[in-house]
């Protein structure tokens, strides 16, 4: 052992003992039973219907950017549900445990959760919502849409793409595992030092938090490299920078932020790991350590991360609003500049996360002003969206409703954000519920955009629209819940109520806390409507089949190919003639998908190695959490071995023959004309032959002829 640890340790199981399984806690026991039943049903059904081969071939080993994107979204959705349950528990606890006479149950003095348990819940809630729900959902949607929007056949690095997915999933799985084996960190999602050092957090919770976080950081960094390379290098011919769809611009900006900021977090967490495992003193109070260092490093990542989340959301709004206003986006160039301005400013504002850490007034002034600067490009974006609707024909379909909700949330969140940036205000309510309510406005804006984007692009990915009736119920109950939870929370902020309380000493605050509980009830109903929405949509999918251009007024390249998109995306790589290419083609009457002389398409081949690397990294993290050194070493050796094996594998690509392309294209065309629906979802499996190809050419879409006959000639 390298550091002194409280509690037992043995070479075989490390710190893991039977007492670490919280079977005596009825809440966790219930959760476990629920999870176990769900697991048995899913695995049982897969076996019963003989789908293991399908799951393995089409999903687990896939490198197809669309399927990887769908899996990212599924991971995000599951974690979103978990994060929501955490939120429900925090709000119920705070609604019960008010004042010294409030009742207590299940071993808690007040309420039904002990401080230790509440701590784990809000830590998990924060980490999950930011890192394992919002991030995978956004990365998933970028994964699906960006290559389609730029007319590419896959990402620049399909293998890296799969690896990013499985590392992120491994991190999420680790957070889930901590429910049933050991415990989770209990001091806030961003980790306080020295509170997260061994003397104050002696258990394994912080280790779980740290390694789960590290895995997701690794996954997201890989994803950002991939998306940047894809956008820079793989745009279809003719797509100049200023013809790029606005969502792609947002993705580029956001991934530049990710690539430059995530490594900082890796270092920050790495140093904390050295403190906890090797006994160094980077962040301790004594022995030369400095806790301020952690705050700086963490928020140098943490604030750009906020914009990493919000820029794709802005991009989604910028796609949805023009489509449903039946009009071009107002101020395209301004939007691009604003996206990059937000990205640029994001590196210079991190100190506003600790205005109260005794920086000199000139330092606080600087960061107060830079923070306010963010308001300028954001304000411009808001006005541009409004002027996009101006002189348009606004259709209130579900994606548009979500985008408009996001717009209103941005107005509230933006205003309160400007109030937070005003440092003298922040002195009064830093770490308070005003800040909490503010950033929930912002993340709900992200959530609203994501729901809108899913409604919007769902038909593209799966070939049928989601139904509207239950979706609208879901939407309106989300609106109700948001109002009832967060308006009182702003008042609690004015009350000076701080974050992370498991017991509320002041009974005057009770009415507000009880109103938020009503809001939570609305949210619960909303979740039920969401399930109904999904169920009805899947049941009635044949009724809602759509062709390539699902909404009729969409504008970008992704609407040019079939819905669902074939594995190779585009039978021919399109030549781009204008900004909003698809709208341009429709106006000029060349929207017809041509049947032509199909050619062989060169695509990456499936591989199981990313999945195994993900599993092994999870094993490694688990072993490190419990300090089972032999297991950690084993996993590490196997990972290195797999990476070496993979690097000698020359058989990584495959060719889809022209006749196969022709078959798929014909089926899709016939399907979209109404007679025969295309079989399966998301790109019917194509029969591919594996060949080792030498020389250049690849998924970027080098078809054999440099100038396809179908490309429009007069530009």
């Amino acid at each position, binding site marked *: 052992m390298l550091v002194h640890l409280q509690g037992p340790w043995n070479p075989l199981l490390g710190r893991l003992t039977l007492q670490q399984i919280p079977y005596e806690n009825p809440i966790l026991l219930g959760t476990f039973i629920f999870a176990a039943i769900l697991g048995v049903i899913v695995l049982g059904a897969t076996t019963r219907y003989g789908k293991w081969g399908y799951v393995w071939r089409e999903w687990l080993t896939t490198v197809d950017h669309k399927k990887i994107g769908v899996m990212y979204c599924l991971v995000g959705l599951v974690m979103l549900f978990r994060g929501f349950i955490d939120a429900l528990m925090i709000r119920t606890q705070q609604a019960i445990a008010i004042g010294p006479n409030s009742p207590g149950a299940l071993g*808690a003095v007040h309420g039904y959760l002990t*401080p*230790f348990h509440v701590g784990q819940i809000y830590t998990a809630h924060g980490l999950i919502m930011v890192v394992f729900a919002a991030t995978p959902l956004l990365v998933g949607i970028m994964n699906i849409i960006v290559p389609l929007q730029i007319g590419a056949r896959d990402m620049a690095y399909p293998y890296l793409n799969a690896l990013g997915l499985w590392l992120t999933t491994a991190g999420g799985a680790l957070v889930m595992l901590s429910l049933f084996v050991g*415990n989770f960190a209990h*001091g*806030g999602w961003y980790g*306080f030092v*020295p509170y997260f050092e061994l*003397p*104050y*957090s*002696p*258990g394994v919770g912080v280790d779980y938090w740290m390694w789960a976080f590290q895995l997701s950081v690794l996954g997201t960094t890989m994803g950002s490299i991939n998306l940047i390379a894809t956008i820079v290098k793989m745009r279809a011919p003719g797509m100049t920078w200023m013809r790029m769809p606005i969502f792609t611009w947002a993705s580029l900006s956001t991934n530049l932020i990710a690539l430059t900021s995530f490594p900082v977090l890796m270092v920050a967490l790495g140093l904390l790991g050295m403190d906890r495992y090797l006994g160094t003193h980077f962040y301790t*109070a*004594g*022995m030369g350590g400095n*806790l301020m260092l952690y705050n700086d490093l963490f928020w140098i990542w943490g604030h750009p991360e906020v914009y990493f989340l919000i820029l794709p959301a802005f991009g989604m709004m910028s796609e949805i609003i023009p489509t449903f206003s*039946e*009009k071009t986006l*107002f*101020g395209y160039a301004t939007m691009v500049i604003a996206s990059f301005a937000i990205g640029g400013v994001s590196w210079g504002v991190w100190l506003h996360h600790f205005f*109260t850490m*005794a920086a*000199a007034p000139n330092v*606080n002034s600087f960061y107060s002003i830079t923070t*306010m600067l963010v*308001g300028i490009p954001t*304000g*411009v974006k*808001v*006005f*541009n969206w409004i*002027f*996009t*609707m*101006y*002189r*348009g*024909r*606004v*259709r209130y379909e579900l994606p548009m409703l979500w985008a*408009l909700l996001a717009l209103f949330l941005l*107005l509230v969140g933006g*205003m309160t954000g*400007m*109030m937070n940036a*005003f*440092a*003298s205000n922040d*002195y*009064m309510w830093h770490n308070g519920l005003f800040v909490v309510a503010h950033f929930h406005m912002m993340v709900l804006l992200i959530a609203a955009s994501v729901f809108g984007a899913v409604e919007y692009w769902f038909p593209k990915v799966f070939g049928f629209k989601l139904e509207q009736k239950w979706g609208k119920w879901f939407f309106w109950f989300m609106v109700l819940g948001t109002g009832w939870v967060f308006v009182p929370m702003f*008042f609690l902020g*004015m009350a*000076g109520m*701080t974050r*992370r309380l*498991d017991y509320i*000493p*002041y009974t005057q*605050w009770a009415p507000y806390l009880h109103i938020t509980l009503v809001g939570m009830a609305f949210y619960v109903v909303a979740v039920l409507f969401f399930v109904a929405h999904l169920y009805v949509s899947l049941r009635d999918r044949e009724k809602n089949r759509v062709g390539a251009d699902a909404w009729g007024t969409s504008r970008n390249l992704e609407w040019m190919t079939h819905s669902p998109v074939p594995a190779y995306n585009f039978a021919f790589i399109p030549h781009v003639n204008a900004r909003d290419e698809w709208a341009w083609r429709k106006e000029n009457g060349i929207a017809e998908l041509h049947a032509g002389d199909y050619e062989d398409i060169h695509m990456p081949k499936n591989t199981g190695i990313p999945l195994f690397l993900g599993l092994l990294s999870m094993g490694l993290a688990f072993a490190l959490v419990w300090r089972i050194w032999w297991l950690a070493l084993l996993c590490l050796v196997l990972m290195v071995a797999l990476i070496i094996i993979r690097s000698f594998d020359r058989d990584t690509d495959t060719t889809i023959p022209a006749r196969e392309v022709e078959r798929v294209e014909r089926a899709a065309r016939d399907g979209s004309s109404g007679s025969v629906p295309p079989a399966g979802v998301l790109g019917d499996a194509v029969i591919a032959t594996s060949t080792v190809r030498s020389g250049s050419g690849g998924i970027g879409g080098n078809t054999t002829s440099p100038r396809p006959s179908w490309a429009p000639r007069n530009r």
Partner: protein
Amino acid sequence: MFIKNKRSKTWPRLVLPLALLTLGGCSRSGLFLLEPEGLISQTFYHYFMLDVGIMLLIIIPTVVLTIWAMWRYRKGGNGSYHPQWSHSYAIEAVVWGIPLLTVGVLSYLSVKAIYDVNPYNPGVIAKAQQAAGGDPVEVDVIATDWRWLFIYPQQHIASVDELVVPVGTPVRFRLTSTSVVNDFIIPQLVGMIDVMPGMRTKQALVADKAGTYVGYSADYSGAGLSWMHFQTKAVSPAQFEQWVQSAQQSPQHLSYAGFNRFARPYIAVGGDQQIFGQVQPDLFDQVVGEVMRGKVWPTPMAMTENMVNYMKKQRAEQKAGDY
């Protein structure tokens, strides 16, 4: 008593939204930030109202514009339709100009406010003190897991979870922590300042009105955080003198050795207040120094995992001993 807060609160109130106006009526509502009773918190309130007012000048028209565009240009409505219209230099100038102007004005106010209330040397207090003369009251604050110890170095007394200050006199704090980061706040009197182990931070306040105000830690510091609050009694200078004299009679004394026992993790469920009649003179500096040299009061694993049992045990132990 020699400092009067003359800052007007009436005109910013005029630009308030209705919601906040109605709140102004229900005092004692627990909305502490809206009921400022100290020089610093009044100053915050003043700038806060200005800030809200200016923001609403922008936000309300924007909301109206959004709703108007949504209604006027709905499909099937009366709005004209120009699908190709996507650019106008005039509009672009306005949409960049308005946020630029707003941010400019707010930045100016923000910087002014920061210098007025910055914890190390609040402009408003420095000004008031210069005008009136007199010595400030000094208080050394040590945050432990999870109690507040207030040492009055000039009076050689200390008080646990209870802060007594004279009305109208500047009080200057030096703050440190024994273990993890806490955040010191008395919402009706003064804003937050981090209280960090092995480091010394500063804060200052002037209470305008006699009364009892709540104070607490605003930064997460562990299982006992929710009970880590203290009472602030603002009393007249005469009453303050009286309180000091009675405190000096307390038989309990505090040295570093006693403090070493005092600083062990302890959850003050009952708001356990305590007075020390005599305090080792350089206790504050010694605690900062010891923590810098690596002294820790660790949280036992038993405490993180079963707080309630631990609380009972520790309570029995600590009640028994004198420091």
